Structure formats: C-alpha cells, structure tokens
C-alpha cells in the first residue's frame, strides 16, 4: 500500500540573482515498510526534497505539486496541522548529530519531546517510554542517564539519541538525511543497522538520503538518483546498481575507489566525472548532465530527455541509456 506519494514536486527559491529551481518534476512513492534511497552529489536537491516533504523549507520558497501521505495532501495543510504530522507520522534524522541536539537541554527532555507533543501521557509513563527508547537505540539508561547533556556524548551516541527522539511516536515514515556522513566508518555501520532494524521492527517506511552508494546499497530496496534537482534514474536498487542505464549513475559508480582489487593490477587513477555541477541560477536546457556526459549528443542539450522504462519500475531519463541494447523490454 502506498504510504507517501510525491507528484510533480517543484521547489524554487527567489534570490537576488533570479529564481532558482532547486527541485524539478520529482515523482516518488514509498510503500508501507518500504525503503527508498535518494543518491546524488551535494546540492542536487535531495535534502531539499526531504525538507519539502516535512514542510520545513525556508519561508520564501515556492513549492508546487502534490505530497500525499495516505491520500492527505501535506502541501494543503497549514502549519498547525503540519506540526501534528511531524514527529508523529513522519520523523526525520539529520546529518550532524553534533548540532542536531540542543546543547542546553538534557537528552531525556529531548527524547521525550515528540511524545510530549503528540501523545497525551502521564509524566511517569513518558519517562518509562523514554527509558525504553534509550534501550532500543542501544543506550543503557544506567550508563547513559537521562539527565546527561549532549556534550557528554560522542557523535554516534548523539545520533542514537536523535533516532530515539524521532522514533518515539513510531512514525509511519522515517527520513534519514545522511545520518552517517558525520560519523566514522565503524560507527556508521552500527547506526545504519540500528535504523534498518528499527524501521523493520516498527514497520516504518524509510527514506535514506546519502551520497554514499554503499550506504544505499546496504539499506534500501528502491533507489532514486538525483542530479541538479531532477531525477536521473530510479527503480529497484538491485536493478539500478547492476544494470545502470544512466551515464550519471555509471559515473557515480566508477568514481568509487575499489578496495578488493590488487593495487598493482589497478595502477590507474581513480575515475571521476569531468566538469562540475551546473549552476542552478542559469537556465538549464535539455538534460542537466549533458555538459559532463560522455554519451551526450546535440539532442541532449536541446530537449528534456524522456523517461525510458526498463521494466520492473526501472526508469532512466536519458536519450542514450547505457542498457538500451541489452534490455529486451525497452520502452515497455
């Protein structure tokens, strides 16, 4: 069953340099218990999309399209109604655990925040639930009493507190915006596992935003590749990763350093995508990736690429997809 459906989402912000279209024509849907990954470089609009779903964009941004949470259009809700959705039905985990907790409040108070706001509970009940949540995210209450302040915890521990805070009301949807980017690799693993476990245990759908393809591969069932505010390719994670159709997805893949192969064998330089991310202030015509694309033709620079389907929901917006020939159900 579809939990969240985003239809034709456009987000633009007026600046002194003119209007910037940060997100253009984004469609996505997340089923109950589903996991969706959003990948892309910095500034590709993945976090903005998430903030758009939460209605937490800067006040002067212009949003159009539809964001349906079980038939309810979130964009039509006012701030007060939206406050009842946030933290209650949709939770969001942020990138920087060092700054995402209020430095002058104890962790206990902060974890209790959503419970306090959305559920009518007695004080004692809240405390026992908070303690329970702390155990769930792996923070033993004896070692980590609720009256600790954020600065007394490490980054990983703070991210656990953040997770406890956001799953407190067992939301239907959990958005994790680069939850492990600021953490070191060993902790990263544990946090990802924790998020996935909790999502499964509580039946929460998960949107995992990351620039790390490894994180996406590990945690999500479906994936969406974004570039310059547009979707480049989307589909089942396995399909997209093993059968990538868009040259941009390919470019992302070949720029991952490989650890398996021997160094003598791969004495080559690490590949990178030439050029740089387009300036969104300029009017982008055609495919935004065209200037950096090794397969680009004149058509790419003039027209918006059509969606090409490869079956099983795997779609790429490209005139010259990489798997066109291989696929026998092209344009299906």
């Amino acid at each position, binding site marked *: 069953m579809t939990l969240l459906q985003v239809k034709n989402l456009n987000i633009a912000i007026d600046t002194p340099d003119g209007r910037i279209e940060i997100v253009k024509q984004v469609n996505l849907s997340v089923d109950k218990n589903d996991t969706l990954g959003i990948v892309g470089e910095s500034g590709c609009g993945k976090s903005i999309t998430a903030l758009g779903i*939460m209605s*937490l964009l800067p*006040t002067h941004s212009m949003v159009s399209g539809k964001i349906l949470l079980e038939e309810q259009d979130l964009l039509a809700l006012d*701030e*007060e109604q939206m*406050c*009842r*959705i*946030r*933290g*209650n039905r949709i*939770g*969001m985990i*942020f*990138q*920087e655990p060092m*700054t*995402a*907790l*209020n*430095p*002058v*409040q104890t962790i206990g108070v902060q974890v209790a*925040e*959503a419970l306090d*706001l*959305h559920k009518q509970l007695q004080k004692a009940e809240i405390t026992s639930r908070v303690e329970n949540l702390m155990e769930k995210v792996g923070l033993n209450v004896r070692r980590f009493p609720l009256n600790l302040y954020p600065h007394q915890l490490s980054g990983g521990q703070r991210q656990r507190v*953040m997770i406890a*805070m*956001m799953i407190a009301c067992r939301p239907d949807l959990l958005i994790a915006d680069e939850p492990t980017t600021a953490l070191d690799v060993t902790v990263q693993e544990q946090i990802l596992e924790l998020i996935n476990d909790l999502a499964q245990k509580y039946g929460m759908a998960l949107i995992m935003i990351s620039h790390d393809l490894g994180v996406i591969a590990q945690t999500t069932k479906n994936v969406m590749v974004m570039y310059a505010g547009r979707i480049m390719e989307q589909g089942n994670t396995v399909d997209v990763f093993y059968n990538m159709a868009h040259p941009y997805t390919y470019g992302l893949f070949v720029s991952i350093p490989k650890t398996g192969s021997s160094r003598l064998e791969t004495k080559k330089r690490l590949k990178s995508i030439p050029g740089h991310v387009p300036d969104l202030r300029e009017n982008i015509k055609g495919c935004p990736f065209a200037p950096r694309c090794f397969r680009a033709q004149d058509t790419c620079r003039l027209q918006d690429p059509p969606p090409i389907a490869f079956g099983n929901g795997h779609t790429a917006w490209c005139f010259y997809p990489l798997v066109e020939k291989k696929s026998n159900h092209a344009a299906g």
Partner: protein
Amino acid sequence: MLDRFREILRHGMGNRSFVIGGLISLVFFIIALLSYAWTPHAIENIDIKNKLLEPSWTYLLGTDHFGRDIFSMLIMGARNSVIVAFVAIGIGIGAGVPLGLIAAAEKGWIDELIMRFNDFTFAFPSLISAIMITAILGPGAVNSVIAIGIFNIPVFARVARGAALSIWKKEFILAARSAGKEKFRISVEHVLPNIFSILIVQATIQFALGILAEAGLSYLGLGTQPPAASWGKMLNEAQTFLHFAPQLAIYPGLAIALTVLGLNLFGDGLRDVLDPKLRRIR
C-alpha cells in the same frame, strides 16, 4: 543549574574584570540592601545648625546644606538606583525579549514591523526621550522608571532578535520542528535558553546605563523627588555649593562613576566567561 553557576564562578576567578567588577557591584548591592536595615541617620531629618559639617565619627562623610548625613544619603541613593535600574530592565526584558523572539521566529512583515518600530525609538537619544516622557507624564520616580524602561525595550528586542536568528539557523531547531514543535514553543524552550547568557550580559550593561539615566533625570529634577534620596539629585543640589563645599558633588559623582564602572567591568567579564570562544587562554 548549580553546577553551571559554580563553573561560571570557577572560570570567572581567572578573569580580572569579572573579579574587580563583580566585587564593586557586590559592595554596591550590599549597601543598597543595607539601607533597608540600617542607615547611620534618617535622611529626612533636616538639621540646619549642623549644615555642611566636616567628616566626623558621627557624620562619616559630613553633612549637606540641610544638615543631612551624606553617608546615609549615599546609601539610600544606592537603594534608589538599584530599584529604578531593576524595574527599568524588567520592563525592557519583559517587553523587548518577547518582541525580539517573535521577530526572529516569524520573519517577514512581522519582523519588519517590530524592527522598524525599534529603529524609530532608537532614532531618539534615549536620555532626551526619557526627559520628554517624564515631561509629559510629570516628574517622579515611577515615571522616570517607565521612561528608562521604554528605552530598554528596543535594546533587548534587538539583542534578542539577533541572537535568536543565529539560533534558528541551528540544526537542533530543525530537529525540534521535525518533532512537531510549533514556533512559539521552540522560541521559549529551545531559543530562549540558548540566548540567555547574551541577555544576562546585556542586562548588566543596561543596568549601568539605567543608573546613569536615573541620575541624569534626577539631576534635572524629573526623577526621584524629595525627600527620597538620589545620587543625581544630590549632584544637582551640590551644584550651588560647588565653590565652598565641592565634596557634596564629589561623593555622589564618585558613587555613580564607581558603580557604573564596576557594573560595566562585571558585564564585560561575564561575557568573556559565558562565551567560551571569547575566553582568553591563560
């Protein structure tokens, strides 16, 4: 909270202006409090035959032209200054901080409206405006407190707004909003505690300015009225005797200067102590 207090004291001990300013301010407050329990002489007692006496054991700093004990008047003046400055700051914080918080939270035209109104009040020199207000409302201690208080409002509104805006950009505010908290509760529960130290520092500075303003108004005869004592009024009365009894002007003048200096030093020190980034490495 107690831990935090102890921590502030511990860091403060290494800060010279915090210690000196704190001591001066402390003495000032103790003297002001002392007035409730004891003054060497009642200041209402006019005793013309003992006028303009030299300092003695009975009259520690001598007497003025009405034969009143100068030392007692200074003590009562300290009390008067404390009360006026406290209430004025109370008005400033009570109205200014909420305004600043609202402006920072709402942005847009509400912010514009509040801040432009602020600019408007800022455009008038505060003492002159205070004179204008007391001239309209009539002289008196209460009216002078109101006048000084009104001019504390934009100061606190501006400081609160600026500090709050920087807090609103923090990720933990986004996290609190993600938890479903409305702007009002975020302002009170998340923003206010984080700008508290800035407000306290501003309050000590405004306290000193409040004392100065009160002295200024009383000097002009618009503030505290006789028989109550005020340092500003003492200065005013001393003016006539400046040639043959300069001590009458020197004592209240020194009291004002020393207190304001002490409070400003204390505020400076406190700012350094509260803000770890400014804390000097020793």
